[in-house]
């Protein structure tokens, strides 16, 4: 029987946002041309070119760092903390006022569904500014020592999976603690950062406090290695994180790294099954699985394996993949051709290694970068799909028999960013989470974020925390 209830297209209008054909760098409060070779950013859902973006050379980055240094010594550093807070509150309010614009632009440039950019990314980004605005004049009471002082200029490099949200995670605490910023957005998703630059101007933020330099890896390297940068914050792949750690080693620079993950989502046999299935779906398929803390390994107790997988497959069959701007879309586009190739490669490896691949009947659009939600069962801890971060909508299912085995398997990874535990038994939640080596452990939920809660990893997932009181320490002298 064909379903009589076919949702008609419900696209969010693009007209709210005006994408300029070319974008410059944001340095010292002005938009300026870059001296590198410009590059193009595309809509991954259609491969349509959205805009040409300036590329910052070493000289451009140097100008940005000098502007940030000037702002730190002359305006932002000496400013009364309460006044710094006022600017942050103003930015937070502007993010809310222009929320639809940011959401549409984020979905255009990144490929994520408008439902997520509208209901998750943008509201959370504003929440981070509100939260940190409140800290600006209360740092003496943050429990981080007496009279904590800012570090100076922060060089920040952020990824393409949550472009605006990762900007907020980096910029808000840096500014609240009195630092100035040179930020490099990812080359495939620079547009919301540049719209944020406009918000900085609208908020009358003094020139040089926030500088945005666009470009690829070379620009990022220039930011990280610049001699006058006091603090480096990076979110991205473990591979790049490692090279940044090498570059920063032996300098006075402080460093925080938020890298990859291969989180275990542990489902015990007494879990609330329907909500656990929701959590599994949310954990690995939201944002097309482009989430460093994604629950990419499902550890399910063997005695409920078949029931949970049947339920999961039925649920995945109801996910709606397609136009990211349609308000009813659950799964959008893969961010780039490069990432799509990486996902395909690992999925092929998974099949070659003997795991069983399952995908729902799912039509993919002709143009753009797409990958259907994928579940691998019969995965062994030795398989690469159980060890390597796919960073895509690919779930590996493993089983366990006892809580000890669940903990051992969950911790058997080179990463340690996040984990999830599903059980109706409160004591088991406490006992298991205590033994998980992961920075964030969710109980009976997954991928929930809040600016008051510190986020960060163990092992190759990086070090340092972002958010909460602990996140402030990364930007303050003497506090660690």
């Amino acid at each position, binding site marked *: *029987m064909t*379903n*009589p*209830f*076919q*949702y*008609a*297209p*419900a696209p969010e209008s693009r007209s709210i946002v005006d994408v300029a054909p070319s974008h410059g760098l944001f340095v010292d409060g002005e938009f300026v041309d870059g001296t590198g070779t410009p590059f193009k950013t595309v809509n991954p859902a259609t491969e349509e070119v959205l805009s040409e973006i300036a590329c910052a050379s070493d000289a451009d980055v140097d100008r940005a760092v000098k502007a940030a240094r000037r702002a730190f010594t002359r305006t932002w550093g000496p400013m009364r903390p309460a006044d710094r807070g006022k600017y942050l509150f103003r930015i937070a309010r502007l993010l809310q006022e222009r929320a639809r614009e940011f959401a549409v632009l984020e979905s255009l440039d990144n490929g994520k569904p408008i*439902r997520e950019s509208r*209901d998750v990314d943008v509201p959370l980004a504003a929440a981070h500014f509100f939260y940190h605005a409140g800290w600006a004049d209360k740092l003496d009471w943050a429990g981080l020592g007496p009279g904590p002082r800012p570090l100076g200029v922060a060089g920040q490099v952020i990824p393409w999976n949550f472009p605006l949200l990762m900007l907020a995670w980096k910029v808000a605490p840096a500014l609240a603690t009195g630092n100035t910023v040179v930020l490099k957005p990812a080359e495939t998703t620079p547009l919301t950062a540049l719209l944020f630059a406009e918000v900085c101007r609208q908020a009358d933020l003094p020139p040089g406090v926030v500088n945005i330099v666009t470009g690829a890896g070379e620009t990022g390297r220039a930011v990280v290695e610049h001699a006058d940068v006091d603090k480096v914050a990076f979110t991205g792949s473990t591979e790049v994180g490692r090279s940044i750690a090498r570059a920063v080693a032996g300098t006075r620079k402080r460093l925080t790294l938020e890298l990859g993950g291969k989180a275990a989502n542990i489902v015990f046999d*007494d*879990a*609330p*099954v*329907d*909500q656990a299935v*929701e*959590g599994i779906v949310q954990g690995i398929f939201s944002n097309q699985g482009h989430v460093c803390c994604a629950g990419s390994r499902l550890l399910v107790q063997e005695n409920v394996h078949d029931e949970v997988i049947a339920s999961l497959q039925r649920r995945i069959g*109801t996910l709606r993949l397609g136009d990211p701007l349609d*308000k*009813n879309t659950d799964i959008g586009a893969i961010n780039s051709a490069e990432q799509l190739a990486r996902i395909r490669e690992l999925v092929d490896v998974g099949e070659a290694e003997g795991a069983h691949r399952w995908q729902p009947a799912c039509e993919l659009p002709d143009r753009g970068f797409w990958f259907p939600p994928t579940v691998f069962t019969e995965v062994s801890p030795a398989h690469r799909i159980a060890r390597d971060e796919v960073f895509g909508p690919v779930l590996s299912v493993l089983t366990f028999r006892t809580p000890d085995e669940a903990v051992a398997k969950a911790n058997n990874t080179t990463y340690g960013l996040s984990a999830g535990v599903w059980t*109706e038994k409160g004591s088991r939640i406490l006992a298991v989470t205590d033994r998980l080596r992961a920075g964030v452990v969710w109980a*009976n*939920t997954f991928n929930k974020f809040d600016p008051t809660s510190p986020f960060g990893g163990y092992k190759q997932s990086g070090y340092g925390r972002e958010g909460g009181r602990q996140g402030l320490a990364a930007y303050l002298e003497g506090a660690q």
Partner: protein
Amino acid sequence: MTHVLDPGAPAAAVPPRREPPAPYRDVTRSDAAFRAFLHGLPGVDQVGAEARTAVLATRSIKTTAKAWAIDTAISMIDLTTLEGADTPGKVRSLAAKARRPDPTDPTCPPVAAVCVYGDLAGVAREALSGTGINVAAVATAFPSGRASRAVKLADVRDAVANGADEIDMVIDRGAFLAGRHRDVYDEIVAVREACGDAHLKVILETGELVTLDNVRRASWLAMLAGGDFIKTSTGKISPAATLPVCLVMMEAVRDFRAATGRQVGVKPAGGIRTTKDAIRHLVLVNEVAGPDWLTPDWFRIGASSLLNDLLLQRQKLHTGHYSGPDHVSVD
């Protein structure tokens, strides 16, 4: 009007316990076994259930999908009046509206049923004869259910004799909350028998069961006992139908059919007043249990004021502008 209740009649013998369908035949063999079964159903995490319905509530149903949803919702309504002040005149007027909800537009579908107290079922029967619209009657000492079983069964027989096609019974919430699950079960079985050919909707009164775990257990209990529909509420207790409650009930009928092969319908009732609410429920049915439930045979909405809002939205879709409350009939 026929009345079969004779207070002097001897209490009917307790009927033998009917077995639940396979593979659950033995779960009612003892109080302990039944409790173990119901409490062994997977728990419901309330925060997670609310989060799920909040996401489903963001579905944007527009143009052709909205037109389909409005007409489908109208055809699923159990148009209800359950007041002490109900009269034959009021019931006839409601029946007229049930047949032609929008007198200006013959393409507007009729509702599924008219729902009244049992003593007025005969009036409704007469007013609806030949229309295909069912007469539903509440029974079993509705809404509290606080009467002896003999009185409840007499209430049911009376309503059926008066011409009710569907009986909306209430479960004994007191017995359920006290853990006497087999009493609740036996009563539903007895009412089922008293219904004869009439369809049985079992009202759980979820506002008094409070937790979603209880909603799931009561849903399973009612399905095992042979209810044709499970229904959220009487409409006399707040909160009545909510999206998380409906979610849990749709999960229950979905899982029950997968396990036993028997499909059971769902009827949220009370509190669904706007087109938006109704469409959210249809989205939930569609995405949780699936399109098999998207017909009046398997999904009903118990409501009175909802119909007028659906009609106003329907007129808006057809004409492009909103009219006002004077363009639809008062009940």
